[in-house]
């Protein structure tokens, strides 16, 4: 009798829990539908923004997820024609998530702000394309430029590198092999789990989150051989990165465009304070194979490479690392911008572009005079 009562009670509570979870999932789907016009049924996640085909891993044309809207050419932003309009100077921004824009309000990522600033300075003269792909490593950017971006006849190509990806750099960029597409079949992915993850990130104390991240890093490291973890940047990776940049610069210049490099900015000064340590751990969680000191060293080494290449090949370099103060006002996490951080980056690029334009004009007038 007693056991029956316990079973009945358990069934009752389990039924309530299931009902509550169903209601929460329905709420999430209605919410997505009303807020983002997302499909009520089927999948809705950031994966919908990406595709892997003959171009490699890139943004899915006309993909949409929350605030991110991709145009028919696979770029974030409004629709454009592949053919450059007459009299327009096209600026193509290349890079990963920092350029694509993660935390900024829609239209506040630095390429969009750069477009707005240029429009103000030279109405109708410039067109900025945000061709960045979150997660793209330097070794794949050259290939993407060669096979796709070149068709858009850019005048300027701005490359904002992501240092933490240089470890993924390979000796020579391989030609992309198309991946066979598989039918995923029916998949039910609960949307409520993502909400709970965001809720935890918003409410859990920083110390708890750092502890959990540290535990996840330890667990990831434990599952790999000891040489998997890098405590410093291997010289061959820096050399490979340097080569990637040289190749990219050559490819861009070969097409008659001007390449502009940028140094990478981050929020961390020395990593000594509690807050900065927490930031570094959060950063490391994304790539557990690199220790915190390795991540910091990567930043320094890549910025050195960028600056040296600039001098060696006479490539304009915008020092974003010094243009943006190390303050959480400008960074939403260790390396991604807030609206204000993106505004500073856009202003720094604007100054360089206008300078390059005026020197171009001067050069043209000297040439025509001769």
């Amino acid at each position, binding site marked *: 009798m007693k056991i029956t009562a316990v079973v009945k009670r358990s069934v009752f509570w389990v039924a309530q829990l299931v009902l*509550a979870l169903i*209601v929460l999932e329905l*709420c999430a789907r209605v919410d997505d539908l009303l807020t983002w016009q997302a499909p009520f049924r089927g999948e809705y996640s950031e994966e919908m923004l990406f595709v892997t085909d003959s171009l490699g891993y890139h943004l899915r044309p006309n993909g949409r997820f929350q605030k991110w809207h991709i145009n028919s050419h696979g770029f974030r932003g409004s629709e454009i024609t592949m053919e450059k309009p007459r009299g327009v100077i096209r600026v193509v921004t290349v890079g990963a998530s920092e350029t694509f824009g993660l935390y900024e309000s829609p239209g506040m990522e630095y390429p969009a702000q750069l477009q707005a600033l240029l429009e103000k300075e030279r109405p109708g003269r410039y067109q900025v394309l945000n061709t960045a792909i979150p997660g793209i490593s330097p070794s794949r950017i050259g290939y993407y430029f060669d096979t796709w971006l070149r068709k858009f006849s850019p005048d300027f190509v701005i490359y904002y590198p992501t240092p933490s990806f240089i470890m993924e750099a390979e000796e020579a960029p391989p030609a992309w092999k198309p991946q066979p597409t598989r039918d995923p079949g029916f998949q039910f992915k609960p949307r409520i789990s993502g909400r709970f993850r965001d809720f935890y990130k918003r409410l859990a104390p920083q110390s708890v989150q750092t502890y959990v991240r540290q535990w996840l890093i330890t667990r990831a490291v434990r599952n790999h051989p000891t040489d998997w973890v890098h405590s410093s940047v291997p010289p061959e990776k820096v050399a490979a990165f340097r080569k990637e940049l040289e190749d990219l610069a050559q490819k861009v210049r070969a097409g008659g465009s001007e390449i502009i490099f940028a140094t990478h900015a981050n929020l961390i000064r020395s990593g000594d304070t509690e807050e900065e340590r927490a930031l570094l751990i959060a950063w490391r969680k994304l790539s557990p194979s690199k220790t915190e000191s390795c991540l910091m060293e990567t930043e320094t080494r890549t910025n050195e490479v960028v600056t040296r290449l600039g001098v060696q090949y006479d490539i304009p370099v915008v020092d974003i690392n010094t243009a943006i103060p190390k303050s959480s006002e400008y960074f939403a996490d260790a390396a991604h911008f807030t609206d204000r951080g993106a505004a500073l980056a856009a202003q720094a690029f604007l100054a360089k572009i206008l300078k390059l334009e005026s020197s171009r004009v001067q050069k043209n007038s000297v040439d025509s005079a001769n």
Partner: protein
Amino acid sequence: MLFNSVAFAVFFSAVLILTRLSPLSWQRVLLLLASFVFYGYWDWRFLPLLWTAIIIDYYAAHRIAPESGNSDADRKYWFAGCVIAQLAMLGFFKYSNFVLGSVDSVFATLGWNSSQQHLDIILPLGISFYTFKTLTYTTDVYRGHLKPTRRLVDYALHVSFFPTIVAGPIERAKNFLPQLLSLNRAAKEQMLEGMHLILWGLFKKVFVADNIALLVNQVFGKAEPSGFEALIGAYGFALQIFCDFSGYTDLARGCAKCLGIELSENFRQPYLALSPSDFWQRWHITLSTWLRDYIFLPLGGAFKSLPNAYRNLAITMTLAGLWHGASWTFVLWGVYWALLLIGHRILQPVMKHNGGWFRHHLPKTARKTIKILVTAQLVCFGWLLFRSESLGQVWTMTTSLLQWQGAVDLSLLLPLLKFGGLYLLVETALMTVGIESVYRLPRSLVWIKTIVYAVLFYFTAFYGSGAETFIYAQF
């Protein structure tokens, strides 16, 4: 420690567990300690001020009471001394800079040298609320409506009870103290009702008020808003302040219920008021009844003559405005309400005699709807005065509204429709399944409760715009 913060969730859970595990005889002491911890967490330096207010009142009450054996004159002196002491503390901390600033402005206007002196004073949390509680206690004891409590712990808990200290309800000692004498752990039903109130309060605060606040702050942050923006600002703030303050009250009542204590209701659908005076019987009820019983009626109420009644209303409402904050905008808001209430008193008989056409041509529901709509517009205009940061802004907003200049940006309506709309939707949906008020939900069918709570949890947990402070916590 805001009610809508993780720190409070941890604190309240700990208090709840401790009070449920400890013997009943420890409950009051535990709750008192918890209240001091709660208050000290905000700023421990103000704890002695709170203790002073408690001790002054506690000892004075025994000399003020008719049964104290003191002569009437002595009782009067003690009472006056006690009231002056409490008002002096409130006056010093809340109004010093206001008075100094106003004197400076007058001097500057007259062309005299102004001292430009300002005291670096922090307003102690909840001082307006706990001062009113202490004044109620001494007045009730003096009038012989209440016997002074013998236990200092009980009185201290009445003044500093953590769910009410920040922003009320302004609980009267004669409601609160008897509950302490028979304080028991909350029964299962009481606990469920308490949890329900907490979730409902959080929904109103976190989902509705805090999200609408983004729109309202944007409108009131503009130097020159359009007429439409001013209108949206006023409507938005009306919704924000209601959900913020009634949400706070629900949270306070819910927490108290879980601890076995019942607090007074503070709101009864205020925006369905039929007249300005009806509004004050539905809005911040514990304050309006306090003002009635301790200011308006002692001044003579509405009994002697009409001019006296108008004068008493004007004094009471101006003081009500000033109680909300040391600023001329609050004074203006109080005066505005005084004018509305006086105007209503003047117009009421006129309307009764000349309203025949309406009575004959309009059904009762339509007449009621018109009254509600007219009252709501008057209330919303009052909120525009209340929310403005200066008299200059009052002028800007009012002229924008009246001149109706600038573009009509319909996208501003979206947050109102989204956040306010969902709030109304929940209330309406409950009515359609036969639950006339959301407060009756705990007594409804289990599956309905599960569905509603899951919906409320979803929007509260995943739609919060960040822990915003409560509007009334600033008073």
